């Protein structure tokens, strides 16, 4: 295929107009040695139909049809066709970052509405227009706290997603930050003694699905002069207390469940909200409402003096391209849900999770990994290797969950099981029945 419109005649005419003979002449000024003469080993081009056949063949090597009980930030919620249809409008998809506001009011207003709705669900007054994903948002939150408090120690609950912790660790090494991890005791964070932190970072619910004690985390942070940072599950914010109401300074989330398919974990969406105090430290794009020359309401990127293109090495973060389209999807989905839809999604996910928990703990050898209250995700211990069980369950059509052993030494046979409102009673029953059989065979 070829997506350039140029015909041979066009090329000849244009080359002549710029005083050249052949396409190679366009690169004649390049220094010797940088233009390889050898074949680069690239494939030949393909016709569109052949490309599609190839992609089809690759897709057939995935088991995307598995009935999904895996979570860990990425959830199989019901994604209504209307949300996809609106999000995938080419005017949103094929535009750039809205630098020219006059011809970008569409995406600017959508982002303003996204920010407004993120504020509504987090209970914090200010949100940005998106970050890359949940885990990298955790790093951005830590960066704010470090800058804001001028401290270099960060407390992180072991209930925070292991990938978030891994990312923080990657950068902490480079930046010379000290990360103190606080253990889970019977599923909930036990805040131990350590040097005063820039931030106390925890997850609500935590990675084992357990509902943490907001008050304990927030007072621990504030009592020591640090910021309280909560990772939250956006689909539970219609049911659980909002981090802003609980006194958190920063809340972030993996926003995929809001309007985005699971897509192997990316594009995802970093949802990010802060208190008014932290506004000028906020990373990423922010859209503001203003008026145009004629006094009409209009929208524009604002507070740009935080950003890299203006502040360069002094910028609050280096983010340029973010996840705008995913944020637009989240805006459409949140408006589709409304207060009642969000509450019902959370309520059903929790009810169904508890139903499944009862079913699976009725299987010999399967037990809850802790006695703490959980929401829509829970950890069990199995009487067999979770990796093998997940593989065996996949053969039967289920993605059974996420083995926990790699991340929690205390849970070598742990399996994390997630439930959404989409999992019907029949699916829950089938899951339990198959798990019983698979374990019996194991």
């Amino acid at each position, binding site marked *: 295929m070829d*997506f*350039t419109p140029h015909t041979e005649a*066009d090329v000849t*005419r*244009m*080359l002549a107009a710029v005083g050249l003979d052949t396409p190679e002449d*366009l690169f004649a000024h390049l220094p010797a040695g*940088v233009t390889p003469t050898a074949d*680069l080993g690239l*494939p030949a*081009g393909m016709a569109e139909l052949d490309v599609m056949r190839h992609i089809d063949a690759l897709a057939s090597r*995935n088991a995307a*049809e598995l009935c999904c009980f895996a979570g860990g*930030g990425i959830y199989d919620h019901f994604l*209504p066709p*209307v949300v996809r249809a609106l999000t*995938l409008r080419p*005017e949103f998809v094929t535009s750039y970052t809205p630098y*020219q506001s006059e*011809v970008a*009011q*569409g995406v600017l*207003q959508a982002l303003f509405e996204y920010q407004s709705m993120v*504020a509504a*669900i987090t209970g914090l007054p200010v*949100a940005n227009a998106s970050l890359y994903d949940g*885990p*990298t948002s955790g790093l951005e939150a830590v960066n704010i706290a470090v800058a804001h408090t001028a401290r270099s120690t960060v407390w992180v609950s072991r209930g925070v997603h292991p990938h*978030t912790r891994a*990312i923080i*660790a*990657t950068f902490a090494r*480079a930046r010379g930050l000290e990360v103190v991890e606080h253990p889970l005791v019977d599923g909930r964070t036990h805040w131990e003694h350590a040097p005063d932190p820039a931030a106390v970072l925890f997850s609500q619910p935590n990675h084992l699905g357990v*509902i943490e004690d907001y008050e304990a985390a927030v007072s621990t942070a504030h009592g020591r002069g640090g910021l309280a940072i909560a990772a939250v599950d956006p689909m539970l914010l219609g049911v659980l207390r*909002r981090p802003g109401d609980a006194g958190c300074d920063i809340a972030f989330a993996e926003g995929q469940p809001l309007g985005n*398919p*699971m*897509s*192997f*974990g*990316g594009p995802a969406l970093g949802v990010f909200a802060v208190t008014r105090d932290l*506004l000028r430290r906020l990373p990423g794009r*922010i859209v503001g409402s*203003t008026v145009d*020359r004629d006094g009409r309401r209009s929208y*524009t990127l*604002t507070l740009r003096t935080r950003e*890299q293109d203006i*502040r*360069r090495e002094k910028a609050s973060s*280096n983010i340029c*391209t973010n996840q705008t389209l995913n944020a637009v999807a989240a805006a459409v989905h949140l*408006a589709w849900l*409304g207060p*009642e839809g969000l509450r019902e999604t959370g309520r*059903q996910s929790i*009810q169904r999770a508890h*139903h499944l928990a009862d079913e699976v703990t009725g299987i010999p050898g399967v037990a809850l990994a802790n006695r703490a209250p959980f929401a829509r995700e829970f950890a069990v211990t199995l009487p067999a290797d979770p990796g093998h069980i997940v*593989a065996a369950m996949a053969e039967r059509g289920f*993605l059974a969950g996420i083995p926990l052993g790699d991340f929690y030494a205390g849970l070598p046979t742990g399996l994390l099981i997630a439930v959404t409102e989409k999992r019907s009673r029949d699916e829950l029953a089938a899951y339990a029945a198959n798990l019983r059989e698979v374990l019996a065979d194991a």
Partner: protein
Amino acid sequence: MPEPAGRASSAPLVGGSAEPTLRELSAPGRRAWSLPDLDVPERPLDLPELSAEPVPLPEVAERDLVAHFTRLAHRNFAVDLGAYPLGSCTMKYNPKVCDWAAEHPGFRDLHPQTPAEFSQGSLAVMLEAEEILCALTGMTRATFQPAAGAAGELTGLLLMRAYHEARGRHPTTVLIPDTAHGTNPASVTLSGYTVRHVASDDRGMVDLEQLRAATDDDVAGLMLTNPNTLGVFEHDIVEMARLIHDVDGLVYYDGANLNAILGVARPGDMGFDIVHSNLHKTFATPHGGGGPGAGPVAVVDRLVEFLPGPMPTRTDSGLAWVMPERSIGRVHGNHGNFLVVLRALTYMLALGGPGLRRVAERSVLNARYLAAMLGDDFRPGYPGPCMHEFVVSVAALKRRTGVRAMDVAKALLDRGFHAPTVYFPLVVEEALMIEPTETESPETMEALAAALNEIAAAAVTDPLVVQTAPHHTPVSRPDEALAARHPVLTWDMPAFDHRDAP
């Protein structure tokens, strides 16, 4: 009567009114959502931290939701509507077959924690894309974790640090030319390094002598875009790389401008050690109004062991996730923006080697052709042939008429084109940075040149009209100063009240 091809004509349709916000469209009790009833026995759940109040989201019907976002879409310029010569951004046409691929349920509905055994297709996508990317850049392996160019930069700088530390060295400085994109210095700071600037010379290239002077043992590396943001190919690149390597530094390639040399020249052959590329530029994945993108980082042999992980790897029992030996760790929550990679692979496969090279040729040809048609009011930022984009200055026009680069840009909006990048790079006064891309036709180049020349003429005859442009867009220039002084970032924040004005 009809306009030349390529000039967007999204003419007024109907209704000049502003679009209400979702909050304004909201009415209590209205709803779009529907869910099946709970079909498991409901139980009283004794859970802590429950909320009392419903969250204050808007309440709208599906019909109003659709009309709202459709009307918003109609207030947005996009590549699908017309030419978008935004310099440094490579706003090329995004093929629909790639949209098809990204909507394939076999990829779209896959959970990232699906065991490798059951997601071989996705691992294969990443490996195939990686191989093509490495062939194009002359690198050994690449990671797709970074979600955008800036994330790639940060990753590259962490790799630099890991490399030096593995050799027991702790240099603190990274060299950045003054034409660099803002993300480069910002990334340097975030990675814990210090920026040292290097000036350009009158060819619009890094000044080799200055670079030599700035290079010492404390230099961890150099970050460079080539062709640089002036659209100029750094002629001394091999020598520059040698200078850095001589102090055991690494040379980082900011791949934002890879489009210009695709299949023609390879960063690896120029001496670069680390290369990020922006799939959302060079490989035709759409920008989504500001993302998602993907900023894969490819490296030479000696850096492979430090790459973030896990990486998809061929093993005897199929494709598997393997953590590089001395990996810097994870830089993304999952595997990066996977569907963006899938789109890029689709594009790469469709074009193949010859098609990819054609991209470079025709992007450069379009830029040269366009540049040649512009009048004297658009002075080339630098001498010498441009690559896929070029920078012109309207400083002289401004002195003569008062019309600034921003005004020219706004006037172009009225003429059915998106504006070029303005005031960047910083080293050119009243800069317009123009990147036509290879997917625009010669007719579009001609229409664009005509529009720009027309604006320059209008600047002389009627400067006020140009200075108050655009006149035919849904809104005129928003008051950005007010927006920053009095931030209204959500619909809960009080809008600026004109009575409060000083």
